[in-house]
Structures are given as structure tokens and as C-alpha cells.
């Protein structure tokens, strides 16, 4: 419900009396319902517009008002009162210091630029920052402290412990969660101290600890609570940087690793759907990039690639009557299951104007509705198939059932 009283109050505060609140409310509702604009945003825009019509220009940012971290938006110049919960030595010479700030509304990463920089912040201290800038980098919102920022040490304020969230709800930013290490992944890189997967008993995600940090590696079998971990998006999947996070061993909780499905899962079900992006696909030829190109041969990272590489894969849904699973079937398995090599598929596709679609249709007719046995690794409800075979019918099952029913 739109708060008309507050809008009226705002308008009258600026000496405006001749406005039609019904029309204003209609405009706001229209923005929200037809254009999907957040109500707060719509109210602000329409109010500002009415004020403008009456010759009142609002300051674009309330730069003298203290704002909680949670209410900041990219582009704002803000006043904050925050605690420095962790600091890190950055890799780049342009950056003096990076780390994480928190207040009672949430936590956010910060960077201090080297150029004309103020002194680095002390871990554990509270500061009042004025003229800090909020910006967004790679989808993550952060605070930028620069030569124009005023920094003042202040007395500590109460800071409640951050909310623990399930791993399934992590989004890029700063978060706190409970987890135990699921497995370690060997890294050939010297910059990584430890990396692998963690789980909270329900879902899994990748983690990394950088060699440059003081954080010790995780020990298997131990349950931890991580506060203020850096959550990032890596190749479309969530990955957490535990290097700067505050870590506490939590003996009170046992996380059941076995309930989380990971490597070497085997299951049987029926293929009920072949999804878009199956059959003959195009991949980016740039070294190290294997991204699927769009129909117009566009790579998300490397833009247009007319000299693409072909590949064959299937994205399908396996259904066992109780649950459904998204399968990704790689080229070797597709070739065996369809008895068609990539080269044969390319040739066949070349013979008709919508050739690649024909290939997808052929695959559909070959495997939909059939019982398949699959094995592979399951990561976050996506099944990477290592092998897939049609389930052979075993008549012994029929006889067994007849006996069961007769008794």
C-alpha cells in the first residue's frame, strides 16, 4: 500500500498544496504493477517529479545524513558509521588497503585507493566516514575510500552478530554461514592456499583461501561458522573467499556430509525433456574459454567469434517419479548414445536449412521416454554425466513382483 500520508507530508513541507493525491497514487501503482519498479523507487521518482513541477529541486543525495550500509546504492556519496571487521593486503599498487566494514544493518567490502590516500584503517576499530563513494564492481556493491573522504575514529557501537544464511541463499557480497569442508580440489596455482567445496548439509559451493592471507587451511571433519566471508560469482556459480572471514569452530553442530550428493552418483530414471542448448552447439575458440556461443556466435567474454568450435552435448531432465534432475551430457557420451559422431552431426546439419534443429529433434526422438542409468557427479542439483546407458529390462523383476503380489 502506498503511503499517501508520507507523500502529502513531503509535498506540503515544500509548501505545495495544489496536488491531486489520487493521480499521484495511480502513477505510482502503474509504475509498480506495469513496469515492475520497486515501490520505494516509484514513490521517490513521482514525488521528485511533482516537486519539480512546482519548481522545487531536491538535492540528489542527502549527503549529511548517516545511512545504514543496507540502504546504500551504487552512485551514492555517503556518511557511514562502521566497524572494520577485517583488512587485507591487496595485490594491486593502486590500492592501499581492502577489507570489510560492518554496521548493524549488514556488511560490505571496502577499498582505499593509494593516490592521496588517508592512513589505512585499523582492524576492530569504529569509524565515521564522510564522502565515501558506493559503487558496484562485477555485480558486487562496495565502499570506495579516497583522498576526499573524511575519516574519524569513533566510540564502539553495539554490533549484533551477523545473520547466518543457508549456502543456497548466498548472493555476491558479504555473508555469514555455517559449513564444513566437503572435499579439497588440487590447485596448480601458487596463489591458492586451499580450495574445494564446502557444505552446510543441504547445499554445496566452492571456497578458496588465498596464499597471501594468514588464514589457516580448513580441517576435514570440523564444523565452522564463517562471519563476513566474501561471496563472489565465478563462472555463474557462487564461490566464497574465506581468506578474510572470521572463523569459529562450532562443536555444537554436526553437519551431515553424506546427505549431500556429490561425486559418483548413480541413478535410474526416464529422460522426460531435452532442453534448449542441446545437440550441435558452438563454443568460443579463445584459449581457455569454453563458453557456449549464442546463435549469433557471441561469447559473453570475447564477443563475436566467427571461427567457433563445434561441440555436441545434451541438456536433459531425468525424472525418477519422485524428483527431477538436470543432466549435462558431454560429447563422448552423446556420441555413444546416439551412435553419431560430431563430424557426422556437422555433415547432417549441413544438409538442411535448419540442420542443427534437426539434430536436436533426432536426439529427442532417440532418448525421450526411455529409462536410462546414469553415473556422474552432482553439483548443486546439476548432474554432470560421466556415463549413460539405456536400462536393460530384467524379467526377473517381473517374476519377483508376481510372487510378492501372490503372497
Amino acid at each position: 500500500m502506498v503511503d499517501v500520508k508520507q507523500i502529502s507530508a513531503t509535498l506540503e513541507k515544500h509548501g505545495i498544496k495544489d496536488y491531486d493525491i489520487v493521480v499521484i497514487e495511480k502513477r505510482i501503482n502503474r509504475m509498480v504493477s506495469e513496469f515492475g519498479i520497486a515501490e520505494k523507487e516509484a514513490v521517490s521518482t513521482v514525488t521528485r517529479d511533482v516537486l519539480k513541477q512546482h519548481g522545487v529541486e531536491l538535492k540528489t543525495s542527502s549527503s549529511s545524513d548517516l545511512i545504514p550500509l543496507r540502504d546504500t546504492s551504487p552512485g551514492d556519496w555517503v556518511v557511514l558509521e562502521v566497524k572494520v571487521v577485517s583488512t587485507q593486503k591487496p595485490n594491486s599498487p593502486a590500492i592501499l588497503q581492502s577489507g570489510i566494514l560492518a554496521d548493524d544493518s549488514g556488511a560490505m567490502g571496502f577499498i582505499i585507493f593509494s593516490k592521496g590516500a588517508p592512513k589505512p584503517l585499523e582492524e576492530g576499530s569504529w569509524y565515521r566516514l564522510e564522502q565515501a563513494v558506493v559503487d558496484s564492481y562485477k555485480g558486487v556493491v562496495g565502499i570506495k575510500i579516497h583522498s576526499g573522504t573524511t575519516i574519524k575514529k569513533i566510540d564502539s557501537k553495539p554490533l549484533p552478530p551477523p545473520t547466518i544464511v543457508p549456502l543456497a541463499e548466498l548472493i555476491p557480497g558479504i555473508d555469514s554461514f555455517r559449513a564444513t569442508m566437503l572435499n579439497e580440489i588440487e590447485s596448480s596455482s601458487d596463489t591458492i592456499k586451499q580450495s574445494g567445496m564446502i557444505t552446510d548439509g543441504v547445499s554445496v559451493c566452492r571456497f578458496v583461501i588465498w596464499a597471501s592471507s594468514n588464514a589457516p587451511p580448513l580441517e576435514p571433519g570440523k564444523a565452522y561458522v564463517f562471519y563476513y566471508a566474501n561471496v563472489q560469482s565465478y563462472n555463474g556459480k557462487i564461490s566464497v573467499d574465506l581468506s578474510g572471514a572470521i572463523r569459529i569452530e562450532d562443536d555444537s553442530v554436526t553437519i551431515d556430509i553424506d546427505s549431500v550428493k556429490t561425486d559418483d552418483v548413480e541413478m535410474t530414471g526416464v529422460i522426460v525433456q531435452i532442453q534448449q542448448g542441446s545437440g550441435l552447439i558452438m563454443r568460443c575458440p579463445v584459449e581457455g574459454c569454453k563458453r557456449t556461443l549464442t546463435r549469433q556466435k557471441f561469447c559473453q567474454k570475447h564477443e563475436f567469434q566467427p571461427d567457433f568450435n563445434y561441440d555436441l552435448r545434451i541438456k536433459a531432465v531425468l525424472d525418477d517419479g519422485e524428483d527431477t534432475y538436470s543432466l549435462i551430457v558431454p560429447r563422448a557420451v552423446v556420441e555413444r548414445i546416439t551412435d553419431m559422431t560430431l563430424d557426422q552431426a556437422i555433415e547432417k546439419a549441413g544438409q538442411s536449412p535448419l540442420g542443427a534443429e534437426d539434430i536436436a529433434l533426432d536426439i529427442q526422438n532417440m532418448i525421450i521416454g526411455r529409462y536410462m542409468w546414469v553415473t556422474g557427479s552432482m553439483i548443486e542439483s546439476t548432474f554432470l554425466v560421466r556415463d549413460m546407458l539405456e536400462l536393460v529390462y530384467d524379467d526377473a523383476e517381473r517374476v519377483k513382483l508376481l510372487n510378492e503380489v501372490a503372497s
Partner: protein
Amino acid sequence: MSETYAKREPAKRVFSAELRLCHHVIKGSDDKSPSYILLPTGGLMNRILISGVAISRDKMGDTNPMYRLKVSDKVGAFYVTAGQYQQNAMYQMIKLECPAYVTIVGKPSVYTTPDGKVLVSVRAESVTVTDKATRDNWLVDTARATMKRVAERDVSEAGKLAKQIHEEFQPEIINSWIEQAMASGDSV
């Protein structure tokens, strides 16, 4: 490429004889949430998996034609439809030469006629020609799934509801369904 936010509903394994007994629909809380058909054995069905022999095909209507396939699963028969909004399934139906082993994934629906008669049919999402082995795998799969639903009928939410709504349903009847399904020989 589409991102699905709601997880896809699994396809229930149900014999034609059981589908014939369905009449109760549980609608979702709003327009967007799925509706479910209550299974007498105790389960909620939004999607169904059928495998059997397509015996005959009828064309219904002229301007917006709809095709109806009669499919036998050894226990009885399903009526499966596909029209202009199920184009791929409709094409597959038209291409079929009956009799043929088919597997169908679709949405079951319950329709009550103005004079109170209940008709159950399945709107196909996919119709694929498979083979006897697939049909036989389905018979075993469906027998087991049906037995499991009955075993949990006293404790599952859907089971308890089924006991209320399908008061007259005797769970032992599934034994005769399974006997028919498991009988050897190719009797369709």
C-alpha cells in the same frame, strides 16, 4: 535458454485403472502455482508418465484440430490428446502408425460434465515411439511406485487425504492390476 525458478514437477507412474478413478483436484493458492490430482493410492499428481501400446488415433474438430490417442498399458487404456498448443506432441501422434510402443509425458486433467460425469484424460507434452523393453520397464516401475504409495497411505499427507476423499477405494485392488501388468505374453 530458459531459467526455471520453480522446480519441474516429477512425472508420476500411474496405471490407467488408477487414473480412471481420479476425480479430486487440488488447486494452487494462486493462478501461477500448479494444481494436483489426488491419487486414490495416496499421492499428488501434476504430471504423468505413460508407456504402452498406441492402439488407435482419432482426429477431433476441424478448424483447430485435436488428436486423441488410445494407449493400452495391459491393465486398461489411457486417452491422450494433443492439439495446436502441444504442437510437437501432435506431430508425433500424426506420424504414428498404430499399433506402436509409445512413451508419453503429459499433464493429466479431470473434467466434470454438466451432468456430473467425470472424465479423465492426459494432455501430451511429448509422444515418443519407444519399444517393448521400455514398456516393460515402465510396468515394473509403475507397479513398484503404486505399491509404495499404498504402503505410505496411512502416514503421508496425500495418503490421509485419499482415505477421506476416496473412501470406497480398496487398496488391495492394486494386486489385481499388478497381476495383469506382470502377466507374461504380449497381450495388449
